[in-house]
């Protein structure tokens, strides 16, 4: 991982310190909750974690978790891997930040599943929340991954004819593509705004024992992220406007850096 800063500049070290303090405080708070569960009358489990009303400890814990996610995502977005290319568009940084959040969530999903399987299989004591928590996190992994893929331009496209076109026609095709994406985002919001708003204001829940507000959160999130994706598409169009005509081959999809790394692993 390269150490030079991508966009935080002189803020990099402060953000790093903030991230470390958030992580430390989160761990401490987790410990405090565990200990207080042993002695206090009131038990704070995952069930209580999404119901902060009247439970100041839960409120603090959620705040710390959010702070950890945010600062880690921002800090980690300050460096890019070689496969990611250098961001050029005006909207790229935001997409990178959400991609980092999605990467952290992917790792967390694995841990949650592991916890569930261990509890269920070794201790015959399955949790009520692990499946739904994975589902909740995964919906954000998918949405953020979509935005990230847009920023990375890693789409499945067919270039056979596109590559034959002169540059002005390619540009025209790109503009049309971009316009159609915006139209899709527009249509999606048009058809669902009321529904999403209703579910959000009611904080519609999943209707299970743990009962997380998955529809209440994910439905509006879909609309918001589709709009962000459309903005990212415009950003890409502007950033790519003056690029020379490109020709594509499936070779482009192969990541030489990755192969170098595998080679090094094999030679160890």
């Amino acid at each position, binding site marked *: 991982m390269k150490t030079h800063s991508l966009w935080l500049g002189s803020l990099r070290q402060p953000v790093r310190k903030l991230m470390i303090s958030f992580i430390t405080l989160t761990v401490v708070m987790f410990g405090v909750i565990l200990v207080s569960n042993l002695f206090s009358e009131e038990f704070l489990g995952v069930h209580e974690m999404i119901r902060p009303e009247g439970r100041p400890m839960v409120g603090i814990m959620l705040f710390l978790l959010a702070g950890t996610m945010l600062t880690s995502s921002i800090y980690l977005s300050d460096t890019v891997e070689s496969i990611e290319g250098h961001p050029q568009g005006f909207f790229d940084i935001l997409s990178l930040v959400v991609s980092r959040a999605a990467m952290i969530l992917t790792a967390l999903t694995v841990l949650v599943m*592991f916890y569930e399987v261990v509890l269920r299989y070794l201790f015959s004591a399955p949790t009520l929340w692990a499946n739904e928590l994975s589902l909740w996190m995964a919906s954000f992994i*998918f949405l953020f991954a979509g935005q990230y893929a847009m920023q990375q331009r890693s789409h499945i496209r067919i270039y056979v004819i596109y590559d034959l076109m002169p540059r002005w026609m390619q540009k025209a095709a790109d503009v049309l*593509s971009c316009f159609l994406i915006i139209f899709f985002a527009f249509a999606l919001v048009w058809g669902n705004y009321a529904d999403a708003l209703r579910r959000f204001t009611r904080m519609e829940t999943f209707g299970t024992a743990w009962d997380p507000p998955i529809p209440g959160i994910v439905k509006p999130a879909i609309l918001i992220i589709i709009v962000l994706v459309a903005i990212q598409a415009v950003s890409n169009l502007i950033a790519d406007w003056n690029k020379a005509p490109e020709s594509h081959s499936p070779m482009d999809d192969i990541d030489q850096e990755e192969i170098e790394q595998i080679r090094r692993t094999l030679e160890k």
Partner: protein
Amino acid sequence: MEFLELFSWMKVSDVATLSIVLLIGMFILLAIGMPLGFASAFLAVAVIVMKFGPEISFRNFGSGPLSVLAQAVYRQMTNYVLISIPLFIFMAALLERSGIARDMYNSLNMWLSRTRGGIAIVTSLMAVIMAAMSGIIGGEVVLLGLIALPQMLRLGYNQNLAIGTICASGSLGTMIPPSIVLIFYGLVTETSIKALFTASFLPGFILAGLIMLYIFIRTRINPSLAPLPEAAPDDPEGLEKGLRFIGFVAKFALYVMSVVLLRTVLLTITGQNNPEILDEPLRWGMVSDLPFQIGFVVAMVVIMRFLVGKERTAEGWEMGRGLVAPIIVIGVVLGSIYMGITGITEAAGMGVIAVFVLGVIRREMSFEVVWDALVRTLKSTGTIIWVTIGAAALAAAYTLAGGPTYVANMIVAADLPTMGIILTMMVIFLIMGMFMDWVGIVLLIMPVFLPIVLKLPVEELGYFGATLEPRQVAIWFGVVFCMNMQVSFLSPPFGPAAFYLKSVAPAHITLTQIFRGFLPFICLQLIALSLLVVWPELVTLLLD
């Protein structure tokens, strides 16, 4: 809304015109280089507007028939099985960066070094084992290309044979469970993924067997294609090697059974396997299983000590050690699914944990390796997710417009021969596979094709063997589709396996040469495919 009335011509009353407009629209948008996911997403809007007319679609802000689209997207975003996709990709990315594959190759090579065509067969075997660990291709071809290709070329193997073996075997990743292609097929068609996995075992092994048989026969007919390496001085000979192999297997079985035995003992001590508190007996965990488990352990010890000998067992273990890690990973992933411990998604999660823990034991894991794997995972997930979103929206819109039913009825009413329709579909899959990624085909074409197949008279499917049961048709078709996609990984001009191999092969090997090397292997794949088509029972033999 007078403005909208200007567009009222957009409303299309009959499904036929709508379908044709959709098809032409898709062709045009893909031709101008629009990403597949967005093209589908936009066409989904277009289908809704054509079906209901712009006036109804855009009359009230915030609601209307367009809400179908976000509903479809929401269903995919909260689909529990879909989570297995990033997890399987994550697992494969971690696996790539560990030396597990290299050690496995060395172990397999030790056992088979004196066999003619040995390295080629080792490559295929290794590909099968890797295919059972993870469900994606790409990484597999790269690994085999880096490990096995230099060896084969150095020994003077025929270049075409070497190339074809690596790529054809490396593509098996999506044929042998777990397979990301079958997961998507199951998602789209709402077929049981576990049943799909079970059904694809046999066809997968048939294809792998064909590849190995081909190597075996060709190198017997023409030994110059695969020269034997010089015998290493301390390399044990035939029977001795066999004994060591038995020693290795016995020792490994001993370890596995000891773990199972330990679990049974623990369960007995804690009283968790008390038959009175259980609804159904725990598999391999009841008190009544103890005598067998203890007997098995004793038998293995006897084999190791007296049949094989202590020293040979130790040598055998040393030779075979590289196989242990892959078998553990396979055990965790497929074991989780088939022992009924977890579903597909959690099995993928457990696979990630298994690879990670093995990597930590082998001192190969670090924050950088895991982070790098996560970046790659998210990038691949994002690519697939766009097609999923677009295709889900399009399929929902087109179904609402009555498209699939219309097409199915039209084809069934045309009274064409059943196998003729199936063959046409196969040809369409093969041609589309040449230009399009499998994920696009499964998401866009399956919602149209499968309803047709399900409406065909079931007794006319295939020529040999017992008739399928109606509920097995979707499973059979999924496996057939999966086999079709095997061809697409190798078929020119865009077969991805060729490009993966090109990126790791010596510079003098050109793409044309690579594709030429594929030809016999594509024929093998087509043979396997025709077997499945004419003899559907093959798919259902392992299903209960």
